[in-house]
């Protein structure tokens, strides 16, 4: 089959990018964030995300369709130069901190469970330099490799599910409302940024072949991510039961350690780990690229890829600043709150501005073409 060869991402590539950027979260320390307040009912939170993030995202999609512009151009177009610069900068800062916290948390996982004696600094540099090299290849390369690895990753998750099924007690997820519905709704609002990053991924709109591709890919990616998140949040509780899950820093890794294929084939976590670390490298690469792209947008730089190297250094240094992962906890909560509200309100703000501008003819010169 002959395909049009261009530098753009198709549906399946962009779906994979979404799945790696956001879908991976259920395998790192994100679940413990949700379990803290959501307790055994954390698996319901993704359903609330359907509303808290789904609606803003649909609003954003309609804007993308109307203006046929990526998020960065849209910001400059609708909020003017100063506003665009400011918002782009804020968004890049949010993604930057997200990249920092998750790189630190990945390193903590690798360090505590697999390489206890390797110094954290070496792990940090090894992980980030690899991500940098991946990011340097550009989003097209990231996208096609993501499509290459995502089937394996999802298949492994399925295998993991099957192999721990005998240890799962379905009834453990009760009482159904856990800490109470109001707590759950509050939690899902405050932690919306976990999924809300899909809104920032709209910055990659110019890299996708067409609006149709983008729409299908992002909705599919979002749907699969939410489903997977809900399923695994429930599985962790079914296997480890509440309140054990609350005390677990990395439930996914704990689950891979329990997994076994028959009595003779145990200790299989290494196999899961390899693919997981590859996926995390790609995830960090996507985040680095996104930060660079947004920052480049804020600074009106065409060659934003030049920013990757200083950024990766910054991520590494700021990731190494806290002594351990848990010191970052309170900052992460604050960031999550700020991020969540930014992500939820941004599309509505843009929509409002677009409506406002829609009346008069748009005669602003649009210099934004990055």
């Amino acid at each position, binding site marked *: 089959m002959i395909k049009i060869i261009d530098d753009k991402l198709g549906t399946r590539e962009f779906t994979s990018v979404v799945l790696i950027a956001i879908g991976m979260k259920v395998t790192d320390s994100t679940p413990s964030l949700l379990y803290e307040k959501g307790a055994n009912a954390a698996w319901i939170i993704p359903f609330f995300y359907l509303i808290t993030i789904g609606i803003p995202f649909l609003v954003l999609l309609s804007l993308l369709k109307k203006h046929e512009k990526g998020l960065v151009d849209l910001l400059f177009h609708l909020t003017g130069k100063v506003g665009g610069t400011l918002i782009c900068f804020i968004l890049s800062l949010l993604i930057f901190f997200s990249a920092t916290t998750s790189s630190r948390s990945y390193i903590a996982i690798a360090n505590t469970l697999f390489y206890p004696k*390797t110094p954290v600094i*070496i792990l940090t540099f*090894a992980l980030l330099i*690899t991500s940098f090299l991946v990011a340097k290849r550009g989003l097209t390369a990231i996208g096609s490799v993501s499509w290459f690895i995502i089937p394996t990753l999802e298949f492994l998750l399925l295998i993991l599910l099957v192999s721990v099924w005998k240890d799962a*007690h379905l009834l*453990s997820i*009760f*009482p159904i409302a856990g800490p*109470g519905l109001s707590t759950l709704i509050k939690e899902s609002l405050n932690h919306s940024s976990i999924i809300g990053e899909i809104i920032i991924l709209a910055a990659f709109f110019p890299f996708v072949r067409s609006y149709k591709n983008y729409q299908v890919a992002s909705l599919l990616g979002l749907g699969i991510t939410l489903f997977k998140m809900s399923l695994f949040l429930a599985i962790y509780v079914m*296997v480890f039961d509440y309140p054990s899950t609350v005390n677990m820093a990395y439930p996914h890794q704990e689950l891979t350690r329990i997994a076994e294929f028959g009595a003779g084939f145990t200790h299989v976590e290494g196999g899961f780990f390899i693919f997981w670390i590859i996926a995390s490298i790609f995830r960090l690469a996507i985040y680095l690229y996104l930060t660079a792209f947004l920052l480049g947008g804020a600074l009106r730089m065409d060659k934003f890829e030049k920013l990757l190297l200083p950024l990766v250094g910054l991520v590494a240094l700021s990731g190494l600043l806290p002594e351990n992962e848990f010191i970052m906890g309170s900052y992460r909560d604050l960031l999550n709150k700020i991020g969540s509200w930014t992500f939820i309100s941004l599309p509505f703000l843009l929509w409002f501005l677009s409506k406002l501008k829609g009346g008069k003819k748009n005669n602003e010169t649009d210099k934004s073409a990055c």
Partner: protein
Amino acid sequence: MKRISLLVSLIPLLLLSSCGDKLELEQHAYAVVIGLDTNDEDDNLIDVTFQIANPQVGSTDTGAAANEPPSDIVTFTTPDLLSAKELANSVITRKISFDHLNTIIVGEKLAKTPLFHHIIASAMIDPEIRLENTLLVSKEKASDFIDANIPKLETRPHKYYFYMRQRWRDTGFVPLSDLNRYFQRLSGDLYLAIYATTEKNEEVRKNEDHYVAGQIPQKSGDPVQMMGSAVFKNGKMIGILTGEETRMSLLLRQKPLSHYAIQSFTDPINNDYRISTQIMMNGKTRVKIDASSDIPDIKVTVPIKVQVFSNPSLTNYTTNLKHQETLKQSIKNELEQIAKDLIQKTQEEFKAEPFLWYLEARRQFWTNHEYEKYNWSEKYSNANVDVKFDVKIESFGAQMKPEVIRDTGKD
């Protein structure tokens, strides 16, 4: 130039292939069993016993180590498990690794102190201790248990525990007790751990299930008896269940793990004899709980299939349908009686249940707070429990009728 710099930047990648944490098989000593005991002199210290496998024994490499024992057993006194691991290297030249650890043995004395939970919960911080490790409680000191446990046919210790665990599932005399289950059942519910001993205190009983470890009459053979279970409540051992009680508690659970078990019942026609049967689950145990009032109502139905294996009284149960009905009724009554006694024991002695009914009870509540306020364990001790066995006799073996010696009255 560009290529060279790219190559140079790839070097850190090699570090990810775990040079920092490389493991040389040769340099490791694999502890397969750990024993934990209280220290006689200091209450806050524990005695940690390691049984370290000798990989050369039982392999094709035996020739080089013909006179070496299959395992080495050492005991250290330390404040916790991990410091014992480090201290052990003052004696053992190879680095101790828990990668192949599969059984943790706890002396009954330690299990009965609050210290036990501290030790086991803090041990979990070490990633080498896995949630699927089996927990076993020994009647004597764990170090004595490990010392005495020299199975005759299993030279390598890890194989012994591996096969033992396989059999456990079949008989149901002991529960499946791993650390994951221990940590699940800390909030008022009972956790059952395997109970075993090498100390014999033999008693002959008519019912072959009604033993705890150590009481089974046995002549020669392996020294270890595993039977019954140690009952833990809130991380502390509070009692013992016999083999029969353990099996019954497993039957009363909604998700049974034991598939089939051989059990004998009193012959209803001729009470001097007992009939041996194989009982199997015929579907899932159904538990219905009404937790709306202060005295919860619990209704349990256990569907069971019975295969008659031996019939020493030689009564005709096969073709005589009336006898069959009597047998069925008597099996049902007997099982219900055992269940009733067990439930009474848990309600009065332990004031909590090992049947995982709390899972079903939790379902009745909307939030965790409501459930915690209800205090299931406490309510359970006053609950009305009604257990029904739904017995089906499936087969009577390969003979139509037992071969009876006809008393012709001639001699």
